[in-house]
């Protein structure tokens, strides 16, 4: 039995690490929306539109990560 050979680019691992923070952030945003909606159902549409803006601002961190993963691709060993 031969050892499993994994090939690829280390930048992808870096992107995986970079996606942790935005993942937690997006989760917190929608957790807050769910909490707010449970407390005050009539505020749902207002909360949601704010949440999408926050989502966009948080998500861009993960997006920058994927862009940089392509930028630094193959520059290492």
């Amino acid at each position, binding site marked *: 039995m031969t050892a499993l050979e994994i090939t690829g680019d280390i930048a992808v691992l870096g992107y995986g690490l970079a996606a942790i923070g935005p993942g937690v952030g997006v989760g917190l945003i929608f957790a807050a929306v769910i909490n707010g909606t449970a407390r005050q159902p009539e505020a749902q*549409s207002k909360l949601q*539109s704010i949440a*999408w*803006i926050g*989502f*966009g*601002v948080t*998500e*861009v961190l993960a*997006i*920058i990560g*994927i*862009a940089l993963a*392509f930028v630094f691709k193959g520059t290492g060993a």
Partner: protein
Amino acid sequence: MIAGVSTEFIPPGPQSFETPPIFSGVEWFTKPVLVATLSVIVIIWFFYGASRKAAVVPGKLQFAGELGYNFVRNSIARDAIGSKDYMKYVPYLCGLFFFILLNNVAATIPLIQFPTFSHIGWAYVAAIMSWVIYNAVGIKKKGLWGYFKHQTMPAGVPLWLMPLMIPIEFISNILVRPISLSLRLFANMFAGHILLLVFVLGGEYMILHSGSIAIGGVGIVTLLMALAIAGLELFVQCIQAYIFVVLTAQYIGSAIADEH
């Protein structure tokens, strides 16, 4: 497309987005240009048809057009810019929203299946247009000095913090906004398209070229996953069009907001 001769799997990458000219000799007329042109024609047809025979009791097309227009006007422009002077910006926001929406959804429509904004140049132009507009309306309303003061010196911050605040606010409000606006749209479309390619090409490779029944079975599951991801991507495409326009409206609103 990947050549079927080679038996080694070639993963999709940025080279999957290199679109050759559709007619040889016309270098600039590539697939994104074709998709964008088609989307503009569809948008013109849709809104012309919706408003041509405007009646008090709307027909089907007029109803759909009013639904889309009202969505942009009420829940994007009015909420973000404020009910006093939002009407001026509705035409731009409405056009921008439907242009981005159609070009994103083109990635899901069969036979087209290419998101225009996965070529970063398109995203740059859309973001620069929004950047010029929100800066221009801010400068027009407050004057050059007043506008920079408004954007870089938030009210209520003590004076000794200003040397720290001004560079941070300038970078985040003037410099980073167009970059994040364009990168967000571009990378979402790019990553979504690559994700789909990985699942579809990988599934095809596993079924047709692996030569093993077990791996072929996994390939079928992979293709089913691709269907689910296509659904997720459709959602992401609509959300990205919405976020781009909401943020543009938000930037315009913050540029012309009065001090409080």
